């Protein structure tokens, strides 16, 4: 892919993908499935690395794919393509929302959308938690630590995650011996 193709490839996907995350990885995979210039193994290495680092998946996968095709310039073009659609849309909507956020129509719209969002998250949480906890009894320990530290004690999520990860590392060490 050329630099322009990289930009428009991610621009197109990003403009029509709601919610980001896993969905965008599926769209990228679909988009490069027919290409001969990248193998399945190379792409799954990228997916694996993208999911192992923090930050929006749209950013990490576009950076990696851009670098694969065109080096640093490719990375920048791909990330710009991925970030510009959501950035421009929110930039256009922000002043409108801030101006009319007090009106009953806009408030009602957000109340309705948030109720639906609550329904979607409930579904996602239910499936995710069930499968996570069923793949080993130990998983409940870091799971509860994170919820207790952030949700009950109001500790900074970054520190809470670090604490839970340290517990995971200690467990890993002990299990090896």
């Amino acid at each position: 892919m050329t630099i322009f193709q990289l930009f428009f490839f991610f621009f197109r996907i990003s403009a029509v993908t709601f919610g980001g995350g896993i969905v965008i990885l599926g769209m990228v995979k679909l988009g490069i499935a027919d290409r001969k210039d990248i193998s399945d193994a190379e792409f799954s290495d990228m997916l694996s690395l993208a999911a192992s680092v923090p930050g929006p998946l749209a950013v990490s996968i576009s950076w990696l794919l851009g670098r694969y095709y065109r080096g640093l310039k490719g990375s920048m073009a791909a990330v710009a393509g991925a970030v510009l659609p959501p950035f421009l849309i929110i930039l256009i909507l922000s002043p409108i929302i801030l101006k009319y956020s007090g009106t009953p129509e806009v408030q009602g719209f957000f109340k309705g959308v948030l109720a639906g969002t609550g329904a979607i998250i409930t579904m996602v949480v239910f499936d995710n938690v069930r499968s996570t906890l069923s793949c080993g009894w130990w998983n409940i320990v870091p799971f509860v630590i994170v919820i207790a530290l952030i949700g009950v004690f109001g500790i900074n999520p970054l520190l809470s995650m670090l604490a839970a990860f340290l517990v995971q590392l200690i467990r890993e060490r002990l299990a090896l011996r």
Partner: protein
Amino acid sequence: MKVLLELAFSFAQIAVGAFGGGLSTLPLIEYQLVKATGWLTSSQFGQVLALSQVTPGPIAINAATFVGFQQAGIPGSIVSTLSIVIVPVLILCAVSCVLKKLEAEKSRKFKDMLRPIVAGLLTLSLVSPLTVTVKNGVMTMAMLVIGILLMRTCKFFKNYPPLLLVIYGIIGAVIFS
């Protein structure tokens, strides 16, 4: 100038902890924007969450553009969005510098260790939309329950959640005005 630095620093902290992509980032975003800085009230956070679900792109980027604009206009939204993009890119570069190739086994183990932590964050992401929806009254609570039932029974809504959200937004705008 000071507020631009604060925006950059806040969104950098969100980016550093944004593992798992998407909804599991919500507790970090809420902590930074509601609790640590007071830039958003709880109900405004609900609005940002709702907005991110009916516009393209990852919630972290949507929140960055919106709150950046709210706090410091167009420069604010540019700085915040760049912060949420550049931090993951730097981490990606650092990781691929240290490890020439990410060993599949190590990457899998790391993700397995993160999994219950991400599940905990995901569970916490439910708190805000649920409490705001309950606070919004019986109508929105009913919409939430119906939404779960719709997605459980109807393949159409399960595959196109944004459509459900837009319909819900219109219903909300009508019944609350």
